[in-house]
């Protein structure tokens, strides 16, 4: 099939608005009577609230509203697990918990007002590590956990929120048959999504009492539901209005500060803007979980994987916004390999640390770092090349995973072969303190989960409309948000492709709960496949209506017509036809209204209801390779070359695909080398963007991305998901490169110069 619009690197729809600064984000709304909102956070990690006195704050000139739990219904909320209040009413669970909020005429007055709110706390024993939290007699973070509502089946126990297990064969018997058994422990730190736009909300109430919210949020319809649920308001009273989102990476898919902003606007009767500063961002928002992992792996003399046993623990902090699915975590430990004997477990544990939520490919980077580091150690002990080792063991078409699912259209082996080819060309002579490393991954978001935790099916729906204006111009209407990964662009390309018109002829209305049909939200690497399916369906419906109208007008068979080059015409006889505008006018005349085509129910009808096997169509596979240089005197690691090979199914817009890969690599480089939110007794020690080190332009090198295109059957035009997992193999690839450069294995991220230096010293001492 030859395409004309998709497969092309057309410029992004909204790029012009963004390079000129005209693009509107949630903090860019200007109102003459705008108030500034601020939140009072708990200074203690675990306490009972005895009293909150807001009288002095309310009396301060310039303060227009002060709210506490008394202004909220006492309803627990959360995107998946409902374990937190909008404002704490009886207990605080971490340093940073939301206790009260004010709206004032300016920021200085709001900050002054926060100082005047007096809260009496009775401190309770707190627990800061999962290891302590699972001990008998440990302080219980959520005593009423069993009664909490959740849309997943969790079976909590004490501080353990959820557990997962993946079993196949018999590991106990398998160990005897192994030529080599290797065990080790790995750990990963808490990290921050690090979007450049902080969480920022503006809310205003109109004279009819309807609330409009402009939010830095990638899931407007979920946000609307959560505001309604947590404040006990009807959904119809809430309008989430269109604004661009300045980066998400998992951190902007829930309602946390938005309900507070809404309450302040309702109470003050004025528009309110509430922006988190970076100290609040790094202390009181949902960050990525720290983990500890233990792996025991057995192989044959020939390098075939025979058995794996392992356990991974996630510290979910005081609240768990979204369960990541511990079963999925077990699958991530297992990876894209054939292993006959498997016993993997995972659990997620509450502590009084700051709360943890989603961040780019949850819960995958942590187990993949552990397993891919471990595989390299085993390969090196066996004396096998790491790429060959993975090729020997990688899954193939039709393999059955331990979940019982059959794998379809896997790209892992092809990404490994391309990586082998790249390394063959690039490797060159070995140099001291310079080494190559590689790592692979498998990711399939919510699709691989032996524990069967699938959230409410209706919720993953997408719908889209393709509308014709009376002059024949085309509008795509979708609730999808644009946080940078390019949905407005690629969906316009899809519509243009199907209708046979040009990319520039498609306008988009998006991101608005009043203007668009329901949409689950941009994320989970599902946007292009799930939303794209409904967009394609709507465009095809529109095309069929155009063809039907043309057929009637010209008295020809609909089957003989095609839509191409801005016309609908008889195939083989381009002169016999109508322009798109004429065809649309004919449809309007025949139907009495311009064309409104719809596409929907994709996830339910095409995937959700499908057989178990179809679920595993198009797992995401990829392999990264990296060359590093280590300074033995300082432990400093410098990247020299980076290669990232991903199976994308089909690249709808190659430039956008590359952009996702390059950004993902940047993400992974920070995870590998510099990023960690440090805390002691629940107190964040580095809550700013200097002490929390996101990679800069000098930390990065040019990235060579290579695309494998093995089409899926479930994605529109054969595409596979991509965005999140591009960061996943970076950290283990870099750890493996450091090992190959200087012979030290660092098993706890981030691999700071200090750790490398100490490991080198340790090694030379032996």
């Amino acid at each position, binding site marked *: 099939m030859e395409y004309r619009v998709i497969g092309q*690197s057309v*410029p*992004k729809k*909204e*790029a*012009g*608005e*963004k*390079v*000129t*600064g*005209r*693009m*509107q*984000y949630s*903090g*860019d709304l*200007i109102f003459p009577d705008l108030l500034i909102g601020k939140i009072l956070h708990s200074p203690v990690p675990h306490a009972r609230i005895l009293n909150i006195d807001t009288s002095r704050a309310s009396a301060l000139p310039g303060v227009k509203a002060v709210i506490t739990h008394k202004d909220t219904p006492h309803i627990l909320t959360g995107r998946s697990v409902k374990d937190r209040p909008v404002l704490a009413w009886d207990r605080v669970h971490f340093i940073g918990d939301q206790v009260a909020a004010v709206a004032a005429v300016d920021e*200085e007055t709001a*900050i*002054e007002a926060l100082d005047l709110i007096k809260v009496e706390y009775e401190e309770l024993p707190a627990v800061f590590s999962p290891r302590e939290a699972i001990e008998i007699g440990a302080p219980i973070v959520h005593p009423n956990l069993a009664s909490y509502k959740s849309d997943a089946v969790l079976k909590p126990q004490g501080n353990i929120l959820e557990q997962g297990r993946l079993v196949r064969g018999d590991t106990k018997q398998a160990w005897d048959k192994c030529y080599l058994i290797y065990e080790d422990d790995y750990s990963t730190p808490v990290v921050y*999504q*690090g*979007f*450049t*736009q*902080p969480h920022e909300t503006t809310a205003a109430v109109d004279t009819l009492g309807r609330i409009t919210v402009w939010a830095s949020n990638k899931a407007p319809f979920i946000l609307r539901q959560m505001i309604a649920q947590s404040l006990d308001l009807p959904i119809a009273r809430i309008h989430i209005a269109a604004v*661009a*989102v*300045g*980066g*998400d*990476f998992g951190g902007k898919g829930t309602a946390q500060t938005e309900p507070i902003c809404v309450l302040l606007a309702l109470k003050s009767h004025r528009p309110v803007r509430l922006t988190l*500063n*970076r100290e609040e961002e790094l202390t009181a928002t949902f960050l990525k979980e720290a983990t500890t992992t233990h792996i025991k792996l057995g192989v044959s003399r020939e390098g075939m994987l025979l058995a794996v046993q392992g356990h991974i623990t996630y510290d979910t902090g005081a609240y768990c916004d979204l369960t990541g699915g511990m079963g999925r975590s077990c699958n991530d430990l297992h990876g894209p390999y054939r292993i006959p004997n498997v016993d993997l477990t995972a659990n997620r544990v509450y502590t009084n640390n700051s709360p943890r939520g989603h961040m780019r490919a949850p819960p995958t980077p942590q187990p993949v770092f552990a397993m891919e580091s471990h595989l390299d150690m085993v390969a090196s002990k066996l004396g096998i090349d790491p790429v060959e080792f993975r090729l020997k063991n990688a899954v193939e078409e039709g393999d059955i995973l331990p979940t019982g699912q059959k794998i379809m259209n896997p790209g892992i082996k092809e990404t490994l072969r391309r990586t082998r080819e790249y390394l063959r060309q690039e490797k060159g002579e070995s140099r001291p303190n310079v080494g190559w490393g590689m790592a692979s991954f498998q990711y399939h978001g919510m699709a691989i989960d032996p524990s069967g935790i699938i959230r409410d099916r209706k919720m993953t729906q997408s719908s889209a409309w393709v509308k014709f204006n009376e002059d024949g111009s085309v509008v795509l209407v979708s609730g999808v948000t644009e*946080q*940078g*990964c*390019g949905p407005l662009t690629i969906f316009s390309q899809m519509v243009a492709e199907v209708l046979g018109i040009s990319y520039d002829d498609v306008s988009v209305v998006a991101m608005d709960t009043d203007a668009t049909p329901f949409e689950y939200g941009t994320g989970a690497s599902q946007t292009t496949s799930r939303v794209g399916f409904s967009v394609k369906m709507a465009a095809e419906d529109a095309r069929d209506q155009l063809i039907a109208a043309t057929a009637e007008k010209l008295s020809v068979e609909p089957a003989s017509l095609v839509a191409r080059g801005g016309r609908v015409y008889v195939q083989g006889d381009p002169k016999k036809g109508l322009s798109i505008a004429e065809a649309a006018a004919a449809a309007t005349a025949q139907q009495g209204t311009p064309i409104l085509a719809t596409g929907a129910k994709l996830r339910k009808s095409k995937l959700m209801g499908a057989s178990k096997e179809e679920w595993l169509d198009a797992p995401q596979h990829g392999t990264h390779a990296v060359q590093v240089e280590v300074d033995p005197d300082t432990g400093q690691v410098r990247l020299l070359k980076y290669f990232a090979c991903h199976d994308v199914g089909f690249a709808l817009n190659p*430039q*956008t695909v*590359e*952009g996702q890969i*390059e*950004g*993902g690599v*940047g*993400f992974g*480089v920070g995870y590998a080398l510099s990023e960690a939110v440090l805390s002691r007794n629940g107190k964040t020690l580095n809550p*700013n*963007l*200097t002490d929390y080190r*996101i*990679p*800069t*332009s*000098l930390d*990065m090198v*040019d*990235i060579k991305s290579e695309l494998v295109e093995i089409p899926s059957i479930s994605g529109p035009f054969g595409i596979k998901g991509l965005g999140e997992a591009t960061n996943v193999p970076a950290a283990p690839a870099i750890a493996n490169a450091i090992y190959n450069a200087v012979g030290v294995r660092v098993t706890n991220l981030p691999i700071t110069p200090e750790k490398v230096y100490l490991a080198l010293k340790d090694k030379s001492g032996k």
Partner: protein
Amino acid sequence: MPCLYMPLERTRMKKLITLIVNGTPSQLAVEPYRPLVDVLRDDMGLTGTKKGCGHGHCGTCTVMVEGKAVNSCLTLAVDLDGRNITTIEGVVADGQYHALQKAFIQEGAVQCGFCTPGIIMMAKALLDENPTPNEKEVREAIVGNICRCTGYAKIVKAILSAAEGR
């Protein structure tokens, strides 16, 4: 934060200043503690300049003062009385995109777009001083501007291609 060493009422006494923003002088009454970024955004409605952290850690709010790139969150507006300030709104000339803006669109250097205005201002300051930078010079110039979306690859490429096309 209000100044801690002075009573709040005194720090709030507004000062009359003239800012020449994108060539147009404007008279403004501004509290002495307010950073330029807030005055641009909240008083002048120039919201193209984004505020990422307020502490000079991210470079998102970069503007040019007398041709030099500065963090507008670390620059007090009252210190700029009578000075020339260029913001992202002043980069488009006669309705035409600047070479950098064209290159950012063409090379796909824009993702979420929040860091984009600041990086374009930083790159403009670089190209105004050094019209033909190499890759290392570009990377050094934008080292204070955090971008979380792109891994900087296409941003560096766009700045180099804008320099070439000039």
